[in-house]
């Protein structure tokens, strides 16, 4: 299963320190994300990916974590991003 941004061209971001504000012009909603979740969203907005590829993309954020732990983090963030309507799962 891959994940894709619902409307990548609608996303506008501002980053301050380790937090990111995301404005979704499609829904009109504004979200506060951690840096890792924002990076994950940016990666998905650039190109849809499956959880393994996305975990690999973000591994530099968690150098002390095992691949399995990184996978768990990404899984949780994907659920969060899907929950606020920024990404959706697509069948391969």
């Amino acid at each position, binding site marked *: 299963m891959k994940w894709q941004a619902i409307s990548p061209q609608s996303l*506008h971001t501002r*980053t301050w*320190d380790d937090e990111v*504000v995301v*404005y979704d*012009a499609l829904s009109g909603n*504004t979200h*506060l994300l951690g840096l890792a979740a924002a990076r994950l969203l940016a990666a998905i907005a650039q190109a849809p990916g499956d959880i393994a590829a996305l975990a690999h993309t973000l591994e530099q954020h968690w150098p002390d974590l095992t691949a399995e732990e990184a996978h768990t983090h990404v899984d949780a963030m994907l659920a969060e991003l899907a929950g606020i309507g920024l990404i959706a799962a697509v069948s391969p």
Partner: protein
Amino acid sequence: MNISALSPAQLQQRLRERGLCIRTGPFVTRVHTSLAAAAEGIGLLYADYPLAEEEDFADFHIRLALPNGLRRWLKPQVLFLFDGTRTFKPLPADQAFPMFEWGLNWCVSSHAQSYLIIHAAVLEKHGHAVILPAPPGSGKSTLCAALAQRGWRLLSDELALIRIADGCVVPLPRPVSLKNASIDIMRQYTPDAVFSRQVRDTMKGTVAHMKAPADSVARASECARPGWVIFPRYEAGADARLTVVPKARAFMRAADNAFNYSLLGQQGFASLAGLIGASSCYDFTYSKLDEAIDTFNQLALPALLP
């Protein structure tokens, strides 16, 4: 010519007949009323404001009127009409002046869409604005009134206007709304300030308005650059203390206090991002006004962004 150039009789006649055109910051309001309570408040608190020419464009057309029928005589009420249309429920007639103030806030916050409008007090020093977004009961207006009487220029007590075109903070100096205990606190703290008479039993309790300093009114065309976004909170017995708020969180809180952030869409996002990016952001707790003012006077100017 300022409103003070009119005698009380001339002011009442103007309000009753042609309407009085008041210039407040970037807006002109034409107000009609035959209510003495409204005329009294306008004459007292708007004396230093420029009279706009009658042929000038008026942004807002307001009428404060008595309803027809028995209500004119039995527990008289006041109606607020915007462009001839009733906008709010009627209030007791002695609340005519507070209703004028609340109604004018509504006029601006509902119609001035070339600004991002945040529910906040705003003051200026050294060309930089401090914006104080806060919910009712936070001590925002009390702090604003005190700062305005101690060397800070009043830009607004209620409405921070961030001009979308360039991010400037545009002044809208008007009387400062004080409620309940704040009224006596400010009377004692600034005995030279001018206050409207107290009006009791309003939806906000007892209210009175403090006249904006004449210098702030005279400089209403001087915009300011964003400097600080500070979320104030009165806390009995607390020492004055600033705590840094991460900018992304300050953004979300300021957005929650904005009237038209959602309406403006991407422009609102960009304007607020510009404001927060250019400002130092803090939480501020205080209990003593002197300590609060000392703290504000020691604020370091934010680094100017390229």
